[in-house]
């Protein structure tokens, strides 16, 4: 979730709007007594707002719908980030929805009025400079910021990237608002933070690598916009020199790990192979029984794998993964970035 402080219900009190992993936007309404219990934001049909994927609270399973797709929609989108923003300049707050499964951003038009929302039933894709917005590395979060100082709210997006250090990491971009000052229109993006290569070697992390959730503000009071970025960092301590025997041991341990993985897959295959044509609840029940029957095998494999990994880590520094919040101090000093035109 990435909270947004905004007067969603136009009652003069700030509320907290946030998309969460269940696939829907939520709001905790502010009051004189404090923050109220978060509730789902609903469409004008009274149903929760979703893209495609959502957690079904009735079946307690992941579910999907295409009831709100715009014509030409492709794939399974999963909204985990939300911004309340007057996209069309009609005086009420629409909803921007970020897709965790791709780099797409959608919006739900509000046909109501301030404090009396009536969100349309179609997820419209958001475009920029004539093309669909496609955040490299899938959308982690979105923020509104007047990055170029022209008085209009620009759209910033941080991306996920390989969350466990796999492949390219996340970055941050801003799509400048090139609209007429009323309805928003987005121009070509400016890269603020390049995607991480997730290959840092050192005793400490060097940057936010994956799952970049940012916000903007002049935190050092020098007149320009700095970035705060929450994210996972991935790094590996500098390798130490190994003698021939140690190198041989590393190779043996790596082979042992591969063997453990193969054994695990084999046992899992044997569990699944015995399911036959069973379906539905019967299949789930049978799977549980068969899995439990092989629990000692899984435990033995896990024990072997853990021991091999533990010894390997003493020879080859393992990859580290930890989350932090980082400060990117803007050095522009009262100039910000070059205006995007």
């Amino acid at each position, binding site marked *: *979730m*990435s*909270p*947004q*402080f905004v007067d969603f219900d136009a009652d003069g009190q700030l509320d*907290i709007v*946030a998309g*969460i*992993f*269940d696939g829907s936007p939520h709001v905790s309404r502010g009051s004189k007594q*404090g*923050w*109220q*219990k*978060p509730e789902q934001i609903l469409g004008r049909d009274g149903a929760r707002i979703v893209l495609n994927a959502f*957690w079904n609270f009735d079946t307690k399973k992941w579910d999907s719908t295409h009831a709100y797709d715009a014509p030409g929609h*492709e*794939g399974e989108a999963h909204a985990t980030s939300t911004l309340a923003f007057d996209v069309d300049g009609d005086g009420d707050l629409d909803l921007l929805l970020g897709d965790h499964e*791709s*780099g797409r951003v959608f919006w739900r038009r509000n046909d109501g009025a301030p404090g009396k929302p009536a969100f349309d039933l179609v997820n419209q894709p958001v475009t*920029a*400079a*004539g*093309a*669909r917005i*496609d955040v*490299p590395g899938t959308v982690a*979060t979105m923020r509104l910021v007047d990055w170029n100082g022209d008085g209009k709210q620009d759209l910033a997006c941080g991306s996920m990237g390989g969350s466990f250090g796999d492949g390219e990491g996340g970055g941050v971009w801003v*799509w400048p608002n090139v609209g007429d000052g009323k309805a928003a229109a987005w121009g070509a*993006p*400016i*890269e*603020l*933070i390049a995607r991480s290569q997730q290959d840092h070697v050192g005793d400490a992390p*060097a940057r936010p690598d994956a799952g970049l*959730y*940012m916000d903007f*503000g002049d*935190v*050092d*009071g020098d007149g320009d916009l700095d*970035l*705060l*970025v*929450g*994210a*996972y960092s991935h790094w590996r301590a500098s390798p130490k020199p190994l003698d021939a025997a140690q190198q041989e041991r590393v190779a043996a341990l790596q082979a042992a790990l591969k063997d453990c993985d193969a054994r695990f897959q084999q046992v899992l295959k044997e569990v699944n192979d015995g399911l036959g044509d069973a379906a539905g609840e019967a299949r789930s029940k049978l799977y549980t029984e068969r899995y439990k029957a092989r629990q000692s095998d899984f435990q033995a494999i896990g024990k072997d794998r853990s021991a091999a990994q533990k010894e390997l880590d003493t020879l080859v520094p393992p990859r580290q993964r*930890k*989350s*932090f*919040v*980082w*400060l*990117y*101090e*803007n*050095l522009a000093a009262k100039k*910000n*970035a*070059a205006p995007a035109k």
Partner: protein
Amino acid sequence: MRPLLLPLLACAAATAVAQAPQFAPPVRLKAGDKFLGEGRLYPSPVLHDLDGEGRVDVVVGDLIGVLTVAPRANAAAGTPAYGSETKVLAADGQPLDFDNW
């Protein structure tokens, strides 16, 4: 499953322009004597004066729906310093929790 993306569609990201601002190398922020957001599941900071005392605090959300706040501990100018994180409370005095998933 239908293909996720239309391969022939142009993507706005592909036209990103090189107008990157200059940032100092990133540094990890601290809240009290700990790193801000350390160990949280996908920490998402937002700058907001939560206590209304005129200084901008950092509110941090996460995947499981918990919100914490690290109060700004020094003046608005210069390197920011923040106090220890505490949970943001709801009107009922309990931690505000967006976890209904």
